[in-house]
């Protein structure tokens, strides 16, 4: 019996063993743990703590704010850029896209270090701005929410552009030509046809950027010490570092993060469906 089972399913067993042990079971365990106390009894207390203790509430709020603002700004800049790309010559377009592809890999810890070196309190540009008396740059605070927004927007832009580009290919040139022949200018075309057709792609990209920002760890880790709590840092701190380790609370925080992510994906998918017209 068992041998028969193995010989029939031998091709899929390795996959399910790996995924089972290192994806399904850990996540399932995390879900269960989030409802257990230190004595392994069922409790809602972990979630009560998450949603009542100021440090976690502030962390959730900060993370949501940072992800939302950076995704929104990143998307807006990416959108304008994507609209400009078709007007470039083929050669320039190739150069620009290669550059974006390269920059989309400039993320995580090296990026955080670069920002620290340049915009940190003794960063190159900051010292330079002080030297020449460029006040508004000299007063730039990297280790603050606006500072974090700047870094996050920076890594959202290339990603946003690369994610939006396929959507742009879906806006057919003939629609634009047909609109011009019906006496519409290019603004009227985008308001009435272009943006409605582009909306699914914009929403999808927004949710990808949001998830990307929400879970960003390296940047937050390096640039934020303790004054600005953020969700991923709070979660990781439950498992590492000098503080007393509290995996149950960490699990509850993780599940909260996961739920926020799924909620945003669900909302954008719902909106996407409303604006999707079966294309011809």
């Amino acid at each position, binding site marked *: 019996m068992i041998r028969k089972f193995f010989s029939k399913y031998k091709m899929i067993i390795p996959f399910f063993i790996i995924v089972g042990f290192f994806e399904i079971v850990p996540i399932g365990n995390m879900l269960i743990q989030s409802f257990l106390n230190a004595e392994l009894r069922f409790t809602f207390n972990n979630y009560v703590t998450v949603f009542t203790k100021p440090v976690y509430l502030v962390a959730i709020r900060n993370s949501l704010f940072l992800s939302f603002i950076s995704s929104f700004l990143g998307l807006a800049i990416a959108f304008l850029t994507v609209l400009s790309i078709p007007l470039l010559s083929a050669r320039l377009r190739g150069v620009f896209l290669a550059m974006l592809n390269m920059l989309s890999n400039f993320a995580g810890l090296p990026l955080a270090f670069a920002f620290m070196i340049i915009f940190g309190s003794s960063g190159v540009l900051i010292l330079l701005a002080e030297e020449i008396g460029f006040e508004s740059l000299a007063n730039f605070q990297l280790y603050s929410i606006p500072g974090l927004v700047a870094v996050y927007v920076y890594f959202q832009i290339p990603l946003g552009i690369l994610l939006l580009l396929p959507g742009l290919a879906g806006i057919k040139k003939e*629609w634009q030509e*047909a609109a*011009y*022949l*019906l006496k519409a200018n290019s603004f009227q075309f985008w308001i009435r046809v272009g943006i409605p057709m582009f909306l699914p792609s914009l929403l999808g990209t927004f949710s990808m950027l949001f998830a990307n920002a929400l879970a960003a760890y390296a940047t937050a880790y390096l640039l934020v010490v303790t004054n600005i709590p953020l969700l991923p840092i709070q979660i990781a701190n439950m498992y590492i570092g000098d503080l007393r380790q509290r995996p149950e609370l960490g699990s509850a925080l993780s599940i909260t993060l996961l739920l926020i992510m799924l909620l945003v994906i669900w909302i954008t998918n719902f909106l996407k469906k409303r604006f999707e*017209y079966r294309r*011809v």
Partner: protein
Amino acid sequence: MAFLELRGLNKIYGKNHVLQDINISIPEGKLISFLGPSGCGKSTLLRCIAGLETVSDGKIYLDNKDLTDVPIQKRDVGMVFQNYSLFPNLTVFDNIAFGLKIRKEAKEVIARDVNEMLDLVGLTHKKDRFPAFLSGGEQQRVALARALIMKPKVLLLDEPLSALDAQLRKNLQNEIRRIQRQLRITTLFVTHDQSEAMAISDIIYLFNIGKIESSGSPIEIYMSPKTEFAARFIGNYNLLTSEIFSELTGCRLEAAYLAFRPEVVKLSEPEFGDDSYFFSAAVKEVNIHGNFIRYVLLAGKAEFSMDILSDLGDPLLIGETRQFAIRKDCVLTIHES
């Protein structure tokens, strides 16, 4: 000056001379076809008239106005594209109303005109559908209505039927012709299908690699091609060089080529007289086409086809050698090559 006048139009893309010195005068209210194989520049010419492409050299006049540098929006031309290009996010009604809304017409005017158009193209019952839920033929009718509602001075149709199946194509050809006559709108129709051009046009312009090869009414184009290209592209003409033709018939004619259509070749009969060429040939291939049979005949170096109606006796057999005849006035001389 004619209603639509193209003078010395040239279009050059890099090294490609896509349009070469095009001169055309088009009278008002007619349906004109631009016919030619793909890549011959006919669509580019249409796009130049619409303003979607700039011309490299030359002038376009419409109704005594120089259009050459006028922006697309101010040209008063309507266009229907091969792939319909309806706005997928708008209903049939809103697609047709699009231009009027841009022109900021009153709501009642829009409703009245759109309903009139829906009636004209027979789609009133589908006005609230989105384009994705229409058949290809229906989409093409919406595209036509969307262009016509603007009352353009010229209607441009860029291979509008080539994505449709044969039966639907015939129906829409008739419908386009009916609407065009009813509205008396000057229409330019681009197609690569010669029978479509024959069926629909008042005048045909035949294009070959960026040049106008010949022009005329469908009957003129069909019955008396002026060039080798025209003879080959239209009516399946058999083309023989004068040398081979004289070997076949024993008569030498002064021409580069001699052209005759497959249906003028007959089986020889005793009452045929001096007005015919006679020769014997062997049957090389037999292809049954339904109402007629096409034979490929072989006589020395001459190889050509012959169409015979299916009801005229028993078919010939491959390898059979018979006497054939062609009436002398059915053989056209072509001087250019």
